[in-house]
C-alpha cells in the first residue's frame, strides 16, 4: 500500500487498513490544498503519498433559483454546483457520490455555506461562527455536531441534488478534484 496512490474513504476501512499497517505514518492536514498528505515513516526511508480523501457528510438542497451566489453566479433551475462552508473556493472542482448506487457527479463550488461562516444568528441560520474548512482538519463539519443546524456539511444545487437521486437531506461522499 505504501508507495502507491491511495484512494481513502475518510473514516472507512481503507484508512483503517492504513492505520493498522506495520508502517507507522503521520497524518498532515494540507492547508488550502485539495489533498491530504500521508507521510509514512519507515526505518530507512520516508515515503510520501498524496491521498485523495473522500468526506462523508450530510448534503442538503440549496434551491434558491434566481438568487446570486457568493461566486457571482445566478442560480438556474436544475443548476449544478455545490456550496462549501468557506470562502476562496469558487470554481474548484468537486466529485460527488451518493451512498446508494448512483453515477458520480463532477461539478464546481459556486457558493459559500451551509451554515458557516456566519456573524449573526437569524431564524434561517442560527449558527454563528467562522468559516469551517473541515476538509483541512477533522473531516467532520462543525455543523454536524451543533444543535443550531441540520448538520449539513455541503449544499447542492437542485440539479446536483436530483442527479444523485436525493429526495431529502442525504449522506454524500465528496472530494476535491475531477
Amino acid at each position: 500500500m505504501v508507495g502507491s496512490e491511495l484512494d481513502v474513504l475518510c473514516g472507512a476501512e481503507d484508512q483503517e487498513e492504513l492505520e493498522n499497517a506495520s508502517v507507522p505514518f503521520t497524518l498532515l492536514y494540507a492547508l488550502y490544498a485539495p489533498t491530504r498528505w500521508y507521510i509514512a515513516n519507515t526505518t530507512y526511508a520516508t515515503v510520501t503519498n498524496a491521498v485523495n480523501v473522500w468526506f462523508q457528510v450530510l448534503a442538503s438542497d440549496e434551491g434558491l433559483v434566481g438568487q446570486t451566489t457568493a461566486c457571482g453566479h445566478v442560480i438556474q433551475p436544475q443548476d449544478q454546483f455545490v456550496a462549501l462552508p468557506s470562502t476562496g473556493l469558487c470554481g474548484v472542482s468537486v466529485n460527488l457520490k451518493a451512498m446508494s448506487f448512483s453515477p458520480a457527479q463532477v461539478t464546481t463550488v459556486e457558493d459559500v455555506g451551509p451554515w458557516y461562516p456566519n456573524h449573526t444568528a437569524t431564524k434561517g441560520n442560527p449558527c454563528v461562527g467562522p468559516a469551517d474548512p473541515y476538509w483541512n482538519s477533522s473531516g467532520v463539519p462543525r455543523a454536524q455536531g451543533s444543535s443550531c443546524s441540520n448538520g449539513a456539511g455541503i449544499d447542492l444545487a437542485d440539479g446536483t441534488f436530483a442527479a444523485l437521486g436525493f429526495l431529502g437531506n442525504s449522506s454524500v461522499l465528496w472530494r476535491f478534484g475531477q
Partner: protein
Amino acid sequence: MRTNRIRVWTLASATLLLWSCTAVFADSLENQAVRYLPSGATFARVPHLGSDGGTTVDPVVASGSATRWGGRDLAFVYEAAGKLALRVVTTSAGQPKEFEARLPGSFVSGSDSFPKGLLLKDVTGAGVQEMLVVTSEGASLGSFLSVFSVGSHDLDNLVRGGTIAGYGFDLDCAAGRPCRVLASGKWTDAAGAWVQVYEWLGTAFVETDKDADRYFSARLVKLAAAASEQAALPVPARVHMAELAATLYQNRHEYDQAIELCQAVLSRLENPASSAERPGVVVPGTGRQPLLRSDISLGEADLHDLLGNAFGSAGRAADAQAEYRLAQDLRNSEANH
C-alpha cells in the same frame, strides 16, 4: 412603396434614438455616481440574466426621489476594504449632499423580487422613496434586507433590529397602506419552509407575522404547483418537491390538498413525457440515461406511500392500505427487474 420606405426609416430612426437615449442614460447614471465614489472604492456589482440567457453584471446604481425637495437622487453600493456601504447623494438648491450607511455581507444579491439588489421605492407611504438593499455572504447562508430613508443628517435605518434576514424577500404593496416585507426560508425541507411578515409601524419595519399563515399557504400552493407542473422534470426533483409539499399539507391537517397533490404528481409520473433524465447523468459512451425507468418506478412507489399516509391521516384506512400495497408491488417489481 415610398410610404413604406419612409415608415421603415422612421421606425429605424426612432429605435436608434431610443437605444441611444437608453445607453446614454444608463451610462450617465454610473458616470454621475462615480464622482461620489470614495477613493479606492469600487461599485458593487450584481449579475443578472439577460433576455438571451446570458449573464450580465451591472454596477449597483439607481436613481429616484429619496427626498421631499424633489430632484433626482442617486443611490449606489460600493465596496472598500472588503466592506459594503450604501451611499445616497441628494441635491438641494444645486448642492449635493452625501449620506452613507454600512451594509452587512460581502456582496449585493439579486433575486426575482430585487433583480438589481437595490430598489428605490416608497414602501412606508411617506411620499418619498426608501432604499432597499439585499446583501449576503453566500446564498446558502441567507441574505439581509436593509431599508433606509434619507434623514436630516444621516440615513435612517427603518428596520427594528437593523436588518431583515431570510433566504428570499418579497414585497406586498396593496393600495392604501405601506408595503409589507415578506422574508422566507429556503423551502427545500420542512424546517426551511417559513415566511415572516414585517409591517411598517410608523417608525420602523417590525416583525408582526400578520397574515403569515396566508402567505405561507400561498407559498405552499406554488411549491405544489411546481411539483405537479407539466414541463418535464427529473423524477427525483419532482418527488422531492412533492414529498415536501405533502408533508407540509399534512402538518397543517390539509389532507385533501395532500391527496390531490399526490394524485396529480402520480399522473405526471405515469406519463413518460413528463419525466426528464437526471441532469448530467448518462451511460458512458452511449449518451443514454441509465436510471430513468427505475427512477419513475421508485418515484411512483414513493408517491403511493405519501398518498397512503395522506389517506391514513384523513381516516381512510382501506384506501391507505391499498396505496401501501401498490408501493410495495412497485418496489418488488423494480428489485426483480
